[in-house]
């Protein structure tokens, strides 16, 4: 018998069982997602949020700063779909533009804290114990501050601004991402494939970037989807207190605040400022939960 007689797996023109299984797993997840009404509703609301913020000038019926004094404090009319405020500015338009602020804070805040949290978490999980302990101490110290109180203190010192709001959002959400990334990294650190990489001579940065990162990022992305509403409400809350976005720039928080002051005259501003907050929160939460249910096998039903 010469070596070529040793049987090899038959070359397959069609996909074999294993490949087809993997292919079907991906398709199965997509189908599961498409069939999940909560997830689809979440996706729809999230798309609405992005579209309304990005294309605010297209959808807007007025300029957000133009005053229409004769029609001030009106309810919904054909001209002003969601009524006007005490200066006669169109509430619908201001809510649309407020979404841009919310999107900006959410997008920058979540993505920056995700990246920093991921890197710090992987370093903590993969690095030496003393570094891990030091980073954990810092994470826990930051987590022990109540976000809003921290923001109040910072604003009192440095004066209100959107940048400050962003910085506070980033600093306070890094620890939760880092904690998650660290736990997943710790679990992977002792696996055989990481040992196999080390036996090939792969450097630590290479192992982290090419072999750990792709495996820990999934849960982090799901967490970040569920974190967006938190960030949006922090921004709205600080703006409501007058510590975030400064007038005349529109934000959901400032619209709510102004509406709150005139709620005895007209309830429409509070309603118009509150609805997008509620819908955004629901949208991202539903989307995040649906993704988690589908991609986290431990929570799935059945065996």
């Amino acid at each position: 018998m010469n070596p070529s007689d040793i049987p090899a797996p038959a070359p397959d023109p069609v996909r074999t069982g294993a490949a087809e299984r993997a292919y079907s797993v991906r398709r199965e997840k997509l189908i599961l997602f498409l069939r999940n009404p909560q997830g689809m509703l979440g996706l729809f609301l999230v798309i609405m949020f992005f579209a309304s913020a990005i294309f605010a000038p297209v959808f807007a019926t007025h300029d957000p700063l133009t005053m229409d004094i004769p029609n001030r404090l009106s309810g919904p009319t054909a001209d002003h779909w969601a009524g006007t405020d005490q200066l006669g500015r169109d509430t619908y338009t201001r809510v649309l533009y407020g979404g841009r602020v919310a999107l900006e804070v959410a997008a920058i805040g979540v993505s920056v804290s995700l990246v920093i949290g991921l890197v710090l978490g992987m370093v903590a999980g993969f690095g030496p114990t003393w570094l891990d302990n030091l980073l954990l101490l810092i994470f826990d110290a930051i987590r022990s501050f109540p976000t809003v109180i921290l923001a109040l203190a910072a604003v009192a010192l440095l004066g209100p601004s959107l940048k400050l709001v962003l910085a506070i959002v980033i600093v306070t959400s890094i620890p939760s991402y880092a904690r998650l990334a660290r736990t997943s990294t710790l679990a992977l650190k002792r696996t055989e494939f990481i040992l196999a990489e080390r036996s090939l001579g792969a450097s630590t940065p290479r192992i982290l970037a090419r072999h750990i990162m792709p495996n820990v990022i999934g849960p982090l992305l799901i967490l970040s989807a569920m974190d967006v509403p938190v960030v949006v409400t922090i921004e709205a809350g600080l703006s409501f207190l007058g510590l975030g976005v400064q007038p005349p720039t529109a934000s959901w928080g400032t619209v709510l605040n102004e509406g709150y002051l005139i709620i005895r005259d007209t309830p429409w501003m509070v309603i118009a400022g509150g609805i997008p907050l509620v819908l955004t929160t629901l949208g991202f939460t539903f989307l995040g939960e649906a993704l988690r249910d589908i991609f986290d096998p431990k929570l799935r039903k059945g065996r």
Partner: protein
Amino acid sequence: MTALLDIRSLNVDFRTPRGRVHALRDVSLQVPKGKIVGVVGESGSGKSTVIWTVTRLLAANGVVESGEAIFDGQDLLTYPEPRMQEVRGEKVSMVFQDPMTSQSPVLSYGQQMTDILYRRPEPDAEKMRRAVEMMRRVGIPDPESRIAQYPHQFSGGMRQRAGIAMALLMDPMLLVADEPTTALDVTMEAQIIHLIRELQREFEATIMVVSHNLGLIAELCDEVVVMYAGEVVEHGDVRDIFYRAAHPYTRALLECDPAREMTRTRLLPVIPGDIPDLHIKPTGCVFAPRCPKAMVVCRERQPDAHTLEGGHATRCHLLDPGLAEGPVAQAEHTAPEAVSEGPRSSGAPLLEVDHLSVRFRIMGALKARVKGVQEPFVDAVLNASLTLKRGETLGLVGESGSGKTTLGRAVLGLAEAHLGNVTFEGRDVLGLSPAAFKPLRRDMAMMFQDPVGSLSPRQTVRALVTEPFEIHGLSKGRLDEEAERLCDMVRLPLNFLSRYPHELSGGQARRVGVARALALNPKLIIADEPTAGLDVSVQGEILNLMGELQREHGLGYLIISHNLPVVRHISDKLAIMYLGRLVERGDSEAIFARPAHPYTEALVGGVPQPDPDKRRALVSIEGEVPSLASRPSGCEFHTRCKYATERCRAERPGDTVLGDGRIVTCHHPLTD
């Protein structure tokens, strides 16, 4: 003879998003009262599905299409769930594969066992008495105090004994054992087989054993059912199956078992091909695509069951009346041919391990100081010396916990050595910094135990096999060529390059592992359990491939394994390891033929033979591997050695060189 369990034409499907998988097709089997019936098959044969169907514990997407499971006169498949709960545990009980995961880690054995007896209207003291009695019966020493312990305080073998005790506690009519020894070492396996046989006689129990291990089946069972791809291909008395197998699959399976081959062969038999996709109901014989005797009719029509004498039956067209051939003779369709030894081991040593010790810290320096512990370490490897020449294969064999994997890793600098030297091609490699070691990694590669788990899960096969080039900055711009070259070398179809590890079967993933290890043309490959997790029919393929590549490239192999029969076939030299020490070293043929160390003898004798007439009357070795933290005095094997003398208990033996160059660490080497 009445059947206690009579499964009649059972059909089970699994619903998947891609359609139905026809997991069991027309499965019929009988378990007669008072007999041990073995169900044997490779992964994907549906042998476990049979158990889950009968105990009604099938996964949520499993559907019983048709069929009956008559147990004690009634069809289990029609029972309402509350009645089924009474059957499970009370009348049918199970012993699982992995006792670590099948026993509750937060309850003591006493608690778990009294819980099992919750239906019995007895006072708790009586239940506890029964539990202690049963623990004593399965050979757990000092059961009165050990029953209060938790699973993590038991060793693997003891846990499986406790699992058997739990299963027998209710005095079930049927005991189902699912791979009862797969998670155990050879010596433990022998003890468990012995225990099950003894208990069966004592309790006159009816037992159904599911396993892929032919040796276990031959040692234990009265009757055997052979399954392939969801069908029963052959069943009969254990001797009929092992001596007069009629179905080509059964014969191929028997031939593939390396323990069967008594002479050393470099080329192991294999069954070519893969298990069929069960989404499509096969039109012909399900084994036809891999069958060396397949005829036209095999692909067209399903074979009928043919009954031979003595209840022996098989489904194969070769037995169709009118066929000239009739029952086929014991054809060795994959007869292994001796491969010319050729220019093998030669020249200066490639790898030399000199008195290597590896220790692990078990408590911090401060804690040790406070507690007054002088040496807060356990020694995983102690004073191990090995030599490996170019083109030579050295098998490092031992039970789990013997330190063999740690030794392999220490050589590659993946575990820190405490004392000793490792020289590779004359250069000292111990204690090198990662940067200084990096160039050496081109010449030394490692294959890890888990074929799929040792591949980075989010990388394609192409990225995986070319990674060594990227890491070492070689073959820039020619990575595609290299990937194709490696794929060809391990005979993996090129379209596999874009796949991910989870899309590969165990054998295919192992090929990727081999390709990766060979990428940079190393001189030494350390292979940790190269056949772990592979079916018998595939393990031959991988070992043959490794052997062929060795002849081509003059590789040196250090093969780490607990599987003595496999290692013996491919190794030139063997080193037997016990508790971190090498107890016997030398030529593999000589060691296997005449073991000189009692431990080697126990390992050689511990392998169950796939031959029902070679059942062992006695267990070759009693007891368990002692803890590394409390090494026995003198010769560390004396606690389990049947030849141990006073001298063994007091004095550590030195190395003795035997006439044929073997080195044995024993006061009383077994020489004739």
